[in-house]
Structure formats: C-alpha cells, structure tokens
C-alpha cells in the first residue's frame, strides 16, 4: 500500500496538473454553452503559453507575461469568432485550423525571437508565478493528518492555481445567478428565442468566445510561467483536448467540471508515478494506459454508460436570422 506522504505528494501534483485543464475546461464551457463548439482550446493555450513565456522573459514580470498570453489567445479567439459567428463557417473545422496554426506559429515566432529551436529561454525569479505560502501553513503542519494536507497539498501553489478554483465559483455564479448567464445558456439552447427577446445573438456569442480566449490565455500562461519555466514546442501536449473531454464528462457544468479536471489531473499525476500505481494495484500497469484513461473515460461517458452527456442544443449551428 502507499503511505500518507506519497498520497499527499500525488494530491499536490494533482492540483498542479489539474489547473491548466480546469482553466481550459471553463474556457470551453463559456463558448460551448453559448452554442459555439470549440476544439481549438489546445491552440489557444499553446499561443498563450508562447506569448506569456516570451514576454515574461523580456520584462522579467510574470504578470505582464500573463497579460500577453491572454492577448495572444484573444487574437485566436477573435479569428474563431469571426469565422464561426460572422461568416457562419464550420466551427469544428475552424477549431482544427486554429490548432494547426498555433502549433506552427508558436515555433516560428519563438525560433525567430530566440533561436533556441522553438523554445523560449528559461525563466526565473519574478518572471514566473512562484509558490505562495498560505497563512499558518508552517504552524499547522504539525497537526496530525489535516496539518500536512493543508501545508503540503493546499498551500504552496502559484496564485493561478487558486485563481482557477475561484473562477469555478465565479463561473457558477455568472452562469446560474446573473442575467448574462441566463442569456448565455439560452443562446446555446435556442438562439431564435434570444433573438426574439431583442438580445443580440452575435453579441452574446462573441462575448462568450472572448471569455474563452481570456481563460485559455490564463491556462497557457500557467503552463509556461508557473507549471514550467518557459515555453517549449507543443508543450500543451493535448491538454486542450483533455479539457474538452472533462467538459463533456462534466456535462457542461462548472462545479462538475472542477471534479472532472481534478480526476483527470489525478490520472496525469499517477502517470508520472507508475511505481506507486504498481504498489497499490499489485499489477504492473503500463504508463500509456494511464495516459489514455481520461480519453477512455470520456468515450464511455459519450457512449452514455456513465450517464448521458447532452450538449447544448444549438451547439455547432451558426445562427441565421432569416430562418
């Protein structure tokens, strides 16, 4: 079996690894709830990671880097919006296109700026979001069981980790307790009704796509300036798609999205510690199997074996007023 310290270590990396998933997942939630499918989360994260890594290096300030990441991601979100809302193009194809564009552009730009094979130079000091010690972490670490949980797992992450979890609450509130949230959900289910009520479908959807851009920007900035020290080629490594999987797993709801991302983050943490997995289940589990678990689970959910996932009804459909 595994001891308490190992479990705490696992949970600690779960929180760190779940954060980019959670930010990207919440990003996708806004867009998809408004009826715009977004499989371009991966690309937006990647662009944001490159912008954040590069600007944080030049300015030595992680906050300025994060703003640059958000700006980069917003440009891609804008292209997605113009393509799929203004020109009523195929949202899925637009997402695929943006992912390739991001994959190539980030390397091209990073290579021309730094000449290090498409990486940004390593970041240190204030150019990164560094761990924050929560109050009383030191003092409480002596308390049995809960003390180490607080000081080792909950305390000691970067500000973006706490921000991500705060955004879960914020998203819940916006979605279910504000007029904007009501309209957002409505425009994803029945845009014609929203239009009849005199609210702009195009405006609402654009605002949602922009929020997606901001949150993907944070996710990318976290990758380059908190989780790792700089941008590397293809560093998001499919996290945008895992976030998409989590979003479906959570059936497009914010609090459930948090649980899904924690679960998938836990799988990622396990994949880094195959020795622990082997000790617990007493069988050698191949690492690729752990890597594939989030995707397998999502397929099972999609298949309706773990409760049916029904997407927003108008998702993927461009809105045509005349119809």
């Amino acid at each position, binding site marked *: 079996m595994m001891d308490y310290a190992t479990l705490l270590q696992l949970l600690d990396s779960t929180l760190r690894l779940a954060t980019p998933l959670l930010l990207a997942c919440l990003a996708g939630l806004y867009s998809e709830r408004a009826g715009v499918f977004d*499989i371009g989360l991966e690309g937006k994260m990647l662009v944001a990671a490159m912008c954040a890594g590069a600007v944080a290096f030049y300015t030595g300030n992680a906050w300025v880097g994060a703003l640059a990441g958000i700006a980069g991601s917003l440009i891609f979100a804008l*292209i997605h919006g113009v*393509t*799929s809302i203004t*020109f*009523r*193009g*195929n*949202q*899925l*194809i*637009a997402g*695929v*296109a*943006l*992912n*390739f*564009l*991001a*994959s*190539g*552009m980030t*390397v*091209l*730009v990073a*290579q*021309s700026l730094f000449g290090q094979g*498409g990486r940004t130079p390593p970041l240190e000091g204030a150019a990164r979001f560094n761990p924050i010690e929560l109050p009383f972490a030191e003092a409480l670490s002596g308390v049995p069981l809960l003390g180490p949980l607080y000081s080792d797992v909950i305390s000691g992450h970067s500000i973006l980790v706490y921000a991500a979890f705060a955004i879960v609450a914020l998203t819940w509130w916006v979605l279910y307790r504000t007029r904007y949230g009501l309209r957002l959900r409505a425009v994803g289910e029945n845009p014609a009704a929203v239009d009849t009520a005199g609210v702009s479908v195009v405006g609402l959807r654009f605002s949602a796509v922009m929020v997606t851009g901001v949150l993907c920007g944070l996710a990318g900035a976290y990758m380059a300036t908190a989780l790792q020290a700089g941008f590397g080629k293809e560093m998001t490594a*499919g996290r945008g*798609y895992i976030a*998409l*999987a989590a979003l*479906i797993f959570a059936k497009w709801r914010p609090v459930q999205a948090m649980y899904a991302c924690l679960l998938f983050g836990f799988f990622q943490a396990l994949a880094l510690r195959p020795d622990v997995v082997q000790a617990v289940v007493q069988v050698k589990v*191949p690492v*690729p*199997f752990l*890597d*594939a678990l989030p*995707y*397998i689970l*999502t*397929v099972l959910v*999609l*298949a*309706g074996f773990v409760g049916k*996932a029904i*997407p927003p009804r108008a998702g993927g459909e461009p809105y045509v007023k005349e119809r």
Partner: protein
Amino acid sequence: MDRLPRWADVALVPFVSLTLAAIISALVIIAIGQDPWEAITVMVQGSVMNAYGWGYTLYYATSFIFTGLAVTVAFHAGLFNIGGEGQAQLGGLGVAMALLFIPWPHWTIALAAAACGAALFGAAWAAIPAYLQAKRGSHIVITTIMFNYIAASLMIFMLVDVLRPPGKMDPATANFPEAAHLPSFNEIPGLNLIFTSGVPANVTFFIALAMAVVVWALLWRTRLGYQIRAFGKSEPAARYAGINPTRIIMIAMLISGGLAGLMAINNVMGEAERLLGNSASGAGFIGIAVALMGRNHPVGVVLAALLFGFLFQGGAELGLWTKIPIELRTVVQGLVILFTGALDMMVRMILIRIFAVFRGRKLEAA
C-alpha cells in the same frame, strides 16, 4: 443572384482560398524576418525541379491521397472523421501484424496481405466511434479525437512492451523480411530511367490512384454511394426514402477508416520497412486539409495531395537550407484548412459580390 457559375465554384473558390493562404504565409515569413521569394524558390527547387525531389513529393502525396479520400468518404455521409491519424497508426499495426510473422514468398502477396491488415485495423479503429455515433448519438468528432489519443497510447504500449525485439532500445518492431520489400520508383523498370537514385516513392502510389478511382465509382456510380451522399445531404430525407442511418454511418466510417489505414502500406511497408512510433506523423490530419481543398472529390483530392506533397517536401528543404523552421508547413496547413474549410462562406460572399458587379455592367451595356 446569389449563386456562382459552376466553373467558379469548382476552380475559382479553391484558387482564391489558396491564394489567401499563400499571401498570409508570405506575410508570416516576412514577419519572422525571412524572404518569402527565397522560401518559394527553395521549395520548388527541392521538390519538383528534379526526379529526386519528385520521389519524395510523390511519396508524401501517396499518403495524403489515402487520408484525403478517407476524410472525403466520411464527409459525403455528413461525418467529420478527425480520427484519420489514429486509424493510420492502427493501419501500421495491421501491416506489422501481416508481415512480421508470416514469411510471404513474394512482395505482391505480401502487399495484398499487408493491405488487408492495414485496412482491417484502420476500419476497426473507426468502427467504435461509428457505432457510438449511430447507436448512442455520441458526436463522431469528439470520439474520433479521443480515439486518436487512445491509439497513440496503444501504439506506444505495443511498440515498447509487446513488439519490440528483445535487447533493442528504440520503440520499433523488427525489420520486415526482405521478401516484403516494395519496389521503389528507382527499382521499377522504365521508371528507373527517370528516378536514378533511391527515393521513397513506391508502387503504393499507383494503388492510391486506383483507390481514388474506386472511391469516385463508389460515390457516384453505385447505389451505396448514392445512399451515402443522400444521407449526408439530409438525414431526415434519407430516412424517409428508406435508407437505414445506422447502416450508412457504419459503412461510410468503415470505408473511411480502412482508407486511412491503407496509408500504412506506403509509409510503414514501403518506406520504413518496420513499424516506428508515431508512424502516421500527421498525415491523418493533413487528410482533412486535402479533402477540404479537393472539395471532397477524388480528382480534387489527388491534386490537393500533390500540392501538400510539394508543401511537405518543400518544407523539409526549407528546414535544411534556410532559417525558416520546418513548422512553416504546419502554418500553411492550418491556413489552408481555415480558408478552404471554415472561411469558405467568406470567399464565396466576396466572389458573389464581384460577379454581381460584372453582371451589373453587362446589363448596363445591353
């Protein structure tokens, strides 16, 4: 007036989209401080100005014809198969299974066996997403994306833990037997007069062309093809006409997956002659761009595949001879998908305006 003449629809729209993609690519090259003219010169020099370059261009094009046709067949049934990459990787596994354990006497028989293995494994990998779409209503785009990742993990597992020969470090199978070697262009009598040095393009190219004809015949000359296209145009209408949706979704996706899998006889059997990690190396995704650019017609797919073959070989030359990173081709790929796929409507709207202006003048003159 809101329709384009047929010639404009078939030729002008893709041409304008491609031009837009090219202009933006040139701007990107300028933005990173390089010379677009130098880039295009190097690309043309290295890919189509000599037989050696053609040997690579046609090799890449062969793979893209298969994956482009795969996406095309699914598109006609109204299904967006993003899973070509995973299906092509599984196709590679099928090729390896067919060649590693049985000593085939001649390459022709080995090719037939490998093609069956490749198509079978590729189709099998498409079958689950197809079934889930048909029976449980799960969105095929999402499931095929998930299956790409599951395929990648499965292939790592197979290569590292199962098929890797004992004592070897790199995750790859043993070399296929000598008898399973496919003739390259430089080994085919007649063609070897043109291709004098060793090139990866091989007999599979002709199979790819044949498959393009088969796909055309299937879609436009058979009852099944008619049903597939009818289903893709309007599911309720097809249902009303007595077409069984489950059957069409399954068959279209099995054909699509099989075609994507078939790609493996080009790269795994024809070129690497053993199964390596990440064997499809993005060709499955390029199939999306190829199908969109080829306007989902086999002739267009072949032409678009040639163009992407040029882009791929030319892009590799860029990485060798200039300071422009090889990733430029991913950028171009993204732009082509964006303009020919997602911004199709924008290009059309612009062209319709222009045509309207010209017609207006004609009317005035009359």
